[in-house]
């Protein structure tokens, strides 16, 4: 649908007013260097409004409201990210008051990477999440397939159970679980954390698996088989392009979700040897030199591989996370 001239002009006017307001507020009330940030945003908005007016009667299918929306999204997402970077790279006298980085010190990244407690916590998190993810995928994928493709009696109850655990406040179960671990005498061990982490990974893997299986064109498999393909050929022409990338995306999302969890690490670990990374950042940050910079830096260091992973399979990831109903 082609946007009307009127909608484009109104969008441009809105952009202009917003930009004007942002610039004025920046001049009058924002101290210091951050003023330039406000100006930058204002300039982008005003340029958008000018472009909107210029192309108002063009036949191209560009919606100025959508452009404005994406600009807002970019500001919404990227400004806090910039703040994280500033926190990470600022010297630790008092928290910096300016969102723009100044006096950038890269040393904190090196400190974080060489810090023993962070390394240990990161390894614990990685091991626990990896084992939990692998175990979960092994049982969840067949279960998801069966829930979608086979007539399982009571499948709605089963699915409801999985969704319930997925959304439940797991801190409620952490207490009794810790109790149980203490009785068994294994409280404080790293690998024992795998069991509660399964509460996160198993429902998530099943839920995403069901979404995946529902989106696969199974009739394609039937026609490939009908054309006389061998099992290997069926795998190569059907399963590999259709199923395997989705499974990969699910594995990665599940791993990321397990790694990210702070509740289990905070409630079920005793000391530094067995604490996960999020729990360490939450509870034990004061032990690090430059605590706030270290926390922000760790976040950024974790962000990079995660983003790369999510960008590797963008369409699958988005479809999996979005089409869950």
């Amino acid at each position, binding site marked *: 649908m082609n946007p009307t001239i009127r909608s484009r002009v109104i969008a441009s006017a809105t952009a202009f007013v917003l930009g004007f307001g942002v610039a004025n507020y920046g001049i009058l009330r924002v101290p210091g260097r951050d003023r330039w940030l406000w100006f930058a945003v204002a300039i982008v908005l005003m340029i958008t409004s000018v472009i909107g007016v210029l192309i108002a009667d063009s036949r191209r299918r560009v919606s100025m409201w959508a452009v404005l*929306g994406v600009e807002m999204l970019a500001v919404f*997402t990227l400004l806090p990210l910039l703040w994280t970077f500033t*926190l990470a790279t600022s010297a630790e006298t008092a928290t910096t008051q300016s969102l723009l980085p100044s006096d950038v010190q890269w040393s904190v990244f090196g400190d974080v990477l060489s810090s023993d407690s962070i390394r240990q916590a990161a390894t614990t998190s990685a091991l626990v999440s990896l084992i939990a993810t692998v175990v979960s995928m092994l049982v969840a994928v067949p279960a998801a397939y069966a829930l979608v493709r086979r007539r399982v009696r009571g499948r709605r109850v089963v699915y409801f159970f999985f969704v319930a655990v997925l959304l439940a406040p797991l801190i409620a179960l952490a207490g009794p679980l810790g109790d149980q671990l203490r009785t068994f005498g294994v409280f404080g061990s790293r690998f024992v954390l795998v069991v509660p982490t399964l509460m996160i990974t198993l429902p998530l893997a099943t839920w995403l698996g069901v979404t995946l299986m529902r989106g696969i064109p199974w009739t394609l498999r039937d026609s490939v088989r009908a054309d006389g393909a061998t099992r290997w050929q069926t795998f190569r022409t059907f399963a590999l392009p259709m199923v395997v990338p989705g499974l990969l995306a699910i594995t990665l999302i599940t791993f990321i979700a397990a790694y990210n969890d702070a509740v289990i690490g905070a409630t079920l670990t005793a000391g530094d040897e067995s604490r996960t990374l999020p729990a360490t950042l939450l509870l034990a940050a004061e032990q690090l030199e430059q605590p706030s910079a270290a926390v922000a830096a760790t976040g950024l260091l974790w962000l990079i591989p995660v983003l790369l992973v999510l960008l590797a399979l963008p369409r699958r990831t988005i479809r999996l996370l979005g089409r869950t*109903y």
Partner: protein
Amino acid sequence: MTSRAARRRRTTKGGWVLVAPAVIVLAAVTLWPLGRAVKTSLSTESLTTPDDTTFVGADNYVEVVTSLDWWVAVAFTMVFVAGVVVVQLLLAAGFAAALRRITIIAPYTRVLVLVPFALMATVVAFVWREGITVGFAPSWFHYTGDGQVSALASMAAAEVWRGTGITTLILLAGLARVPPSLLESAVADGATPRQRLTRIVLPAAAPAVAVAVVYRSLDAFRAFEGPLLAEPSLPRLRTAPLLLWDTTFTSFEIGLGAAMSVVLLALVGLLGVMLMLLLRVRRVV
């Protein structure tokens, strides 16, 4: 007739065998602690005085349900959840509508919404707390950052920022279900944008909105890092999960904490079911 029965048998066969392992593992991992919680909640067990455990029946439950602290925490959590979810929905609706129309480098602009999700929740909570209480926000908007309102705002901001991305993706998928031909014929029939919104877009996207509301509400309810970081500045206002954390892991009153766990789970279950019924969430499998 026989072939249909045979086909049915073939597709039923192997169903439970595939599902059983997942169900068994999940049941073992969740129902065992739940059972233990119920058992522990019937006594006054406490980690600091482990020998002082006496069976008190339902006393712990009575204590939880009649405690003002508990209900204040629950009410506070509900208000927090409602506020956070509404803001997330509004922002996500706007972003989803915008992303729907932008198809240049489509998957990559859409992955932009996943950036907050990719950052660790702990780091997000920390960064927003620093930003709103002592960082850039007080200097931009001229207020002093120490105080309950700032702590509250930082908690809410962290949760909203982190969750808007996923909500956007869900709503985006919902918007994709709107049939474009229907929209075009509505335009041809002279429908105003508002009529198009209320009569075509909203009903078609309603399942997605319902799922987004249930998911975000329950996720916000169990938010942990934000409230924990804000706790020192909000001594009287704690969310229900945080109250549970304090009871079980700071005061080590395990019996009372177990009762609180059971009550919390029941409450969340009730909330979830109510939301699902209210919003008529479609069953998926």
